């Protein structure tokens, strides 16, 4: 078991956000966390890599409690794609991706780091942008660069918070396919917080549906994406169809 969550609770001062979340994740598995705005998706991801300190429950990575791990140790095991990245100063695309190598660097730097950065840039078709200023490329390109940084980190678990929110439909498919291929080929695992239910259904093995900080439903896309669940969680009347083995959600109207 790569990742185990048991009864995780988190509250911002006086506002409870997560109320006893438990699930498990295996190597080679891709899991989507879905739910409406404010349901605790980003908070859950930030608790897993301890950007936020959860109040109770426990989270363990390869049987080791995250609470007892140092920041660098956590970074060696889990890579993170935040919802937003912006810089105060000019930083090139290459240097942004190179940041992902920090957990592998010692005082003298990271010998294989640059090589690895080039490989990732090539994988995501970004090598032509390597010397461009991150602040001057398009929002979609920025998002791919941040994904590249997470991949350069070479972690066992990818934590991706809205990795496709700024991408056009082609890039959405491309990025999700690359992530899925990596997960399946190298046996790593990925947790993706995502709003697009159809992308979640198409690319993820399992779905965790959050509602006000608790797991409303969990299982395969077919089990979770039912018209009843979507109506209860999102307040949307939707029909669900199967096409070529994939569940498709067609939202109709707000209830």
């Amino acid at each position: 078991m790569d990742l185990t969550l048991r009864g995780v609770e988190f509250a911002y001062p006086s506002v409870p956000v997560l109320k006893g979340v438990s699930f498990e994740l295996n190597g080679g598995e891709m899991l989507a966390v879905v739910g409406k705005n404010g349901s605790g998706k980003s908070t859950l991801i930030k608790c897993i890599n301890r950007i936020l300190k959860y109040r109770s429950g426990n989270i363990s990575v390869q049987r080791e409690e995250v609470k007892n791990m140092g920041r660098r140790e956590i970074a060696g095991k889990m890579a993170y794609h935040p919802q937003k990245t912006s810089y105060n100063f000019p930083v090139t695309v290459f240097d942004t991706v190179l940041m992902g190598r920090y957990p592998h660097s010692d005082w003298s730097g990271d010998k294989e780091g640059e090589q690895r950065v080039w490989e990732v840039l090539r994988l995501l078709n970004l090598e032509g942008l390597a010397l461009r200023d991150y602040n001057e490329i398009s929002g979609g390109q920025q998002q791919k660069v941040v994904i590249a940084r997470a991949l350069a980190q070479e972690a066992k678990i990818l934590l991706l918070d809205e990795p496709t929110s700024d991408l056009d439909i082609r890039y959405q498919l491309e990025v999700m396919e690359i992530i899925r291929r990596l997960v399946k080929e190298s046996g790593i695992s990925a947790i993706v917080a995502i709003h697009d239910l159809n992308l979640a259904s198409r690319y993820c093995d399992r779905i965790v549906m959050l509602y006000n900080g608790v797991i409303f439903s969990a299982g395969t896309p077919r089990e979770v994406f039912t018209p009843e669940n979507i109506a209860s969680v999102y307040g949307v009347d939707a029909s669900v169809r199967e096409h070529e083995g994939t569940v498709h959600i067609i939202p109709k109207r707000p209830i």
Partner: protein
Amino acid sequence: MKEDRAEHNSEAVRQYARYKRRKVLVGLFLLAALFAVAVYSVCAGSVRLSIGQIVDALFRHGDRMHEVIIWNIRLPRVLAAIIAGMGLAVAGCVMQCVLRNPLASPFTMGISQGAGFGAAFAIIVLGAGAAQSAGLAAILNNPYAVVLFAFAGSLIGIVTILALAKFARLSAQAMVLAGIAMGTLFSAATMLLQYFAEDIKVASVVFWTFGDMGRAGKTDVLIMFLITVPALVYFMLSRWEYNVLEGGEETAKALGVNTERLRLVGVLLASLITSVSVAFLGIIGFIGLVAPHMVRRIVGGDHRYLIPISAIFGSLLLLGADTISRTIMPPAVLPVGILTSFMGVPLFMYLIWKKRKQY
């Protein structure tokens, strides 16, 4: 198609190698310029010396008077400018990074004024280093007490701002405003002390507010060196952390950086090197703001290059300003703080103007 791509890739790799080489060349060029200005600065002055005379004096087989001029006056002055310029520039660079604020610097955040107040307090109220004789020859007897108070003064300001930032969740702009407010408060407090002080102590304090490279003796330069250089070594060792912090607080934490500690140690060391330079040389404005921004424009934001090149550039600016200040109207020596501010304020205005254009 595949071959095309391989070629394209290696071209990108080559471009990146050129891009890095260019940064190293900029650093080497500035270093050479610093060396040239340092040599000129040792030569220039009311007694003009040739390079031959300097070499003789350095090895102590030249004219006795030349030896005294070089060992006791020019060399300490040049080294003080180099070390202080280096320290202030890197302090500014690190503060801009850890506070995530392009306008942060020892001067705008009130550290310099805090250190100035601490020094004034030590001199006037506690009588540390009572000034002997008057005018330009005012010498502080006990620089160590003054350094300590200067450091304490600089800490009061910065700790207040950091505490406000943490508990009142100040924005970047609000932090600069708070820094300017603290700076003004310290300046007012210094003036208040001066108002009630004896003339001779006032003279001693007034020189703080100008900044003067000529004030540092050999021991002072050694102390500045012993505090500034280890701090610079720490900053260089933390270069990767600073790069990662550029990506934002959450990204840095997720990549394994202890952001709270990095910020705290960075601000404390930046305050320490600022306060020693203020304690020994007085307040030198804007080097800390100007140098890192100019260097960022030339070599970009990668701290592996930004920190050492800012250090060299800060030294070059301060040494250049000091050399101009004492050669422009000989035998008069203008306070260097005036020249650095004349150079710094236009750039500060330009930065504000440029920021406006982004919206």
